[in-house]
């Protein structure tokens, strides 16, 4: 905190004085309007009686009643800098006006830099995307009521995806301190309650010392697996009053909690199961956060010559397998799998619902997840209870080093030979699967609307020689060579529509300083929720390529209505009503151009797609966002 002049002044006393003055002014009768003495009005309007009083009366209080050199929000910025925030995303709001001003002036709008968002939902989703790449939170600011209501779906996404987001809510807790009107409707007595079911922790600090401690505590909680969003209410009086009100201030030290690793007994038991199994399968889930985590998972898989299905594991590694690998497994180890039950079972969505097991009888199931350490009850995103043979409540990435060592100690030459044979079979199956994927892409290759495999193949062809990263939306498909942990951010989440675009922008922002080429296959329906995020990308020069998967419909929902219509035997020709996004068709390229973004399309001829994508990639490589609108098949 910079030096502050001595400015001991009680803001509440000032407000009382100001209120008395205003009451006096209000009581002053307004003179009747004088009758015009000439037809032409005066060149300059005469000031009203109230304005004359305001301008000619002596200032009732010391100038210190009108200014504050060092508001509490300056100290809040110090806290944000202390915690290492690079960005604060916000749609501007008066309830955090002092903090906003402190960020851009006192803090120099650098670390954190303010990101201008057109919707609080975009702020929250951008923070999700950023955290998925950078591994640490972005801060967002919002009104405690209307702002948080807008942001709430993005907060729920952060909770479901297990990513840290730091939410600051502007609020005025003291009713006597609120301006009439808007400030009342933008205040709540328990602002965080609305999102408490899907945040890890929240607090309402009533002093700056309290703010600093709760900010550091909140950051630590957000970053402890299972990670998640936290909320800190920044009271407007706390923001706007001088720091002197709070006496000496200090910055608490941040010490992040070490992620919980499994105990040695559980590790030994799991290692024994893995080495003894004839057909073990590792489910990658959401386990991997870092390059070191990916390296460890690869080493574990290679040591065991065991297949890995899902998660952050190189897509062309010989041990990479699809979901079908579990059918013959005698041991399935789920590493932070969001829906373990739904992975080992198939639920048939027919009128009489049925469950089919995807595994063979006698299979052993082991879960290794920090999700067992933290659960809330109201929102049901935790999925169905899985009957496992062994549940290890721990962070998989933190457990991998000891698990790998334990496995290595148990491998005998006999087992090593068996592993080698198994590895050959898996590698052959993986190579065959890749060839099958290539062949599958040929069907419908020249169709219009353009097939999804053609779209993904053309995009892959344009990015494969760059340091690329997929920043969400539709996945690249089986033909993309994914070999770095940051190249995908999929998984988890709560399937909230409207989040793909702002998530992509936030993730692309995180990739920017690394010079990576960020690309996204964007769903048209999702885009229409909050397209303003594209303007944010243009405004802040966030380079990324958005390829619009424009099937002109909410096709997932059409399929649901189709299912119901078939079940009710009424015919399905009306299934598009309420779901189609045509008549008129949306011109996404024009929308992009209107927001200052390079826009091309709609592309309907598959032969035009490759050149359009290459032109857009050139724009992105120069540091700007770009969008290519592709009229595509439903799936």
């Amino acid at each position, binding site marked *: 905190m910079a030096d502050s002049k001595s400015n001991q002044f009680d803001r509440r006393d000032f407000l009382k004085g100001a209120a008395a003055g205003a009451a006096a002014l209000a009581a002053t009768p307004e003179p009747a309007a004088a009758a015009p003495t000439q037809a032409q009005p005066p060149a300059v309007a005469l000031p009203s009686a109230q304005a004359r009083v305001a301008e000619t009366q002596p200032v009732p209080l010391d100038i210190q009643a009108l200014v504050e050199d060092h508001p509490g929000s300056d100290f809040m910025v110090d806290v944000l800098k202390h915690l290492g925030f690079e960005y604060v995303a916000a749609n501007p709001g008066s309830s955090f006006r002092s903090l906003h001003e402190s960020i851009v002036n006192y803090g120099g709008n650098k670390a954190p830099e303010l990101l201008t968002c057109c919707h609080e939902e975009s702020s929250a989703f951008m923070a999700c995307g950023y955290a998925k790449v950078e591994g640490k939170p972005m801060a967002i600011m919002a009104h405690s009521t209307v702002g948080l209501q807008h942001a709430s779906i993005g907060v729920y996404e952060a909770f479901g995806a297990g990513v840290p987001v730091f939410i600051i809510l502007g609020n005025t807790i003291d009713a006597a301190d609120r301006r009439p009107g808007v400030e009342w409707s933008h205040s709540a007595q328990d602002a965080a309650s609305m999102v408490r079911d899907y945040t890890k922790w929240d607090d309402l600090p009533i002093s700056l010392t309290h703010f600093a401690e709760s900010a550091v505590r909140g950051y630590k909680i957000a970053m402890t697996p299972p990670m998640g969003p936290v909320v800190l209410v920044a009271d407007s009086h706390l923001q706007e009053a001088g720091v002197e009100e709070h006496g000496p201030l200090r910055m608490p030290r941040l010490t992040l909690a070490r992620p919980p690793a499994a105990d040695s007994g559980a590790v030994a038991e799991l290692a024994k199961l893995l080495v003894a199994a004839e057909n073990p399968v590792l489910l990658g889930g959401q386990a991997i956060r870092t390059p070191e985590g990916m390296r460890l998972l690869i080493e574990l898989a290679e040591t065991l010559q065991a297949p890995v299905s899902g998660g952050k594991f190189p897509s062309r590694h010989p041990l990479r397998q699809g979901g079908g690998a579990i059918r013959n497994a005698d041991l399935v180890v789920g590493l932070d799998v969001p829906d373990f039950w739904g992975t080992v079972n198939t639920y048939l969505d027919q009128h009489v619902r049925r469950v089919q097991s995807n595994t063979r009888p006698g299979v052993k199931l082991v879960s290794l997840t920090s*999700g067992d350490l933290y659960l809330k009850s109201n929102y049901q995103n935790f999925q169905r209870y899985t009957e496992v043979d062994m549940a290890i409540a721990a962070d998989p990435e933190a457990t991998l080093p000891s698990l790998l060592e334990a496995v290595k100690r148990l491998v005998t030459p006999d087992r090593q030979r068996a592993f080698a044979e198994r590895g050959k079979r898996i590698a052959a199956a993986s190579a065959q699967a890749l060839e099958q994927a290539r062949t599958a892409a040929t069907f419908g290759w020249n169709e219009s609307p353009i097939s999804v495999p053609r779209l993904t193949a053309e995009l892959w062809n344009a990015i494969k020689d760059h340091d690329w990263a997929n920043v969400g939306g539709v996945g690249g498909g089986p033909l993309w060579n994914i070999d770095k942990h940051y190249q995908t951010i999929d998984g988890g989440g709560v399937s909230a529509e409207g989040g793909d675009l702002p998530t992509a922008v936030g993730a692309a922002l995180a990739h920017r300083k690394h010079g990576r080429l960020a690309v996204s296959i964007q769903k048209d329906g999702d885009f229409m929720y909050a397209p303003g995020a594209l303007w944010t990308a243009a405004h802040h020069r966030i380079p990324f390529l958005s390829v619009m998967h424009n099937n002109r419909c909410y096709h997932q929902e059409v399929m649901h209505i189709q299912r119901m219509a078939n079940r009710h035997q009424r015919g399905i020709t009306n299934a598009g009503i309420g779901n189609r996004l045509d008549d008129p068709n949306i011109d996404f390229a024009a929308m992009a151009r209107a927001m200052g973004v390079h826009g091309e399309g709609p592309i309907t001829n598959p032969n035009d797609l490759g050149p359009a994508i290459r032109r857009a990639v050139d724009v992105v490589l120069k540091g700007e966002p770009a969008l290519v609108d592709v009229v595509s098949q439903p799936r």
Partner: protein
Amino acid sequence: MKGITSFALALAAAFVVATAILAAQNPGAAPAAANAQAAPKGSAENGKKVFSSYGCYECHGYAAQGGGAGPRLAPRPIAFTAFSKYVRLPTGQMPPYTSKVVSDQELADIFAFLSSIPAAPAANTIPILTR
């Protein structure tokens, strides 16, 4: 803490399921000519219209090429009897199409359309698929 799978993962999972269904539905993929002989006479032109208006393309694609939500149906569809049986009484995720929704003649027309779809180009003739 963790939520349900993302669209992309669902897509990948559906691809696996779709592949399995395709394998189950399309064992040995009988030659198109043999299939056509076993099928009732149908109009490929009307079948193409019905395939679109009845929403078959939603999961299987406009050219029946398959996708994230449904397996490939053409070229070289499975035998008509197996095709018809699965459409009427599906054993997987596909919704049932009873005769109230799709008539027998329309089913024959759809099958004629599927049988008319030409072979795809070989993967090794498409440069960007070989990289």
